């Protein structure tokens, strides 16, 4: 059974390489995108941390900024 699935009547090398290429592309794209997202979140957190109290208060008025900080704290 296992041998049949692996060899696929001689087409295994083509089928498995096509599926492997697809899954490898998925994993690579996912991790590259995740890395870019977390990098941007970290940059936002450090910029926010360097604001003075008055500017931080203004920035906090926007809900989206609060959401970004909340998400950044989870990574």
């Amino acid at each position, binding site marked *: 059974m296992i041998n049949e699935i692996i060899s696929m009547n001689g087409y295994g090398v083509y089928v498995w390489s096509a599926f492997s290429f*697809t899954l490898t592309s998925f994993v690579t794209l996912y991790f590259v995108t995740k890395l870019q997202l977390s990098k*941007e979140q970290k940059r936002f957190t450090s910029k926010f941390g360097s*604001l003075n109290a008055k500017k931080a208060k203004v920035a906090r008025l*926007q809900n989206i900024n609060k959401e970004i900080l909340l998400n950044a704290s989870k990574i």
Partner: protein
Amino acid sequence: MFKSFEPNKIFAITSKAPKYILFLFIIFLTVGLTEALILSPEDYKQGDAVRIMYVHVPAAWISLGIFSSLALLSVGSFVFKNKNFAIISKSLAPSGFIFNIIALVTGSIWGKPTWGTWWAWDARITSMLILALFYAMYLLAWRIYEDKDQVIKITSMIAILGAVNIPIIKYSVEWWNTLHQLPSINVLSNNSIDISMLIPLGIMTAAFALFSLLIFLMKYNTELIKVKNKGLDRL
């Protein structure tokens, strides 16, 4: 008209959605792979090589769908002067490009056992390669140009110009005598594909669509945070 789609309002949703989409994607992919590699029957002509269809066809469909969306959003960006359309387009493009590459590579792998060659300058394959070049130009333009208004204009023009290629890809197998087979699935008439192959193909297409949605949401959130980072600089 587009106020409910403003980034400030939808970030709360787009930032939480990826984990649920990832969960759904893993379920669909697991079921799809089991169906495609084990449960679905082999083809009477192509044998087990037909299983490559379950990654090749969804990848081609989604890359075409995403590029069509880029063109529509670009027209929208010109007409409504809404910058959010440009952010959405920019976030969609990477997954569209990867799906385009997957379609080309898996098509090439499928070509060897069925046609006896890895590559042929056939109308369908060549037009898909041209689509990949348009995707590459689109993504490169976002990297090269720094002026926001200029880059939106240039990328929109690339997407609209590239959209001319979409009907050529779709009808290439009917207009020209190609190595590539005629479409087996037709929304308006009877399908020439058996239901035992149509089901795994549908599941794999759903899994691929979920993956492109996942990447889109992650890229979109990245772009929104970039905008907000610039906003902090201006405070």
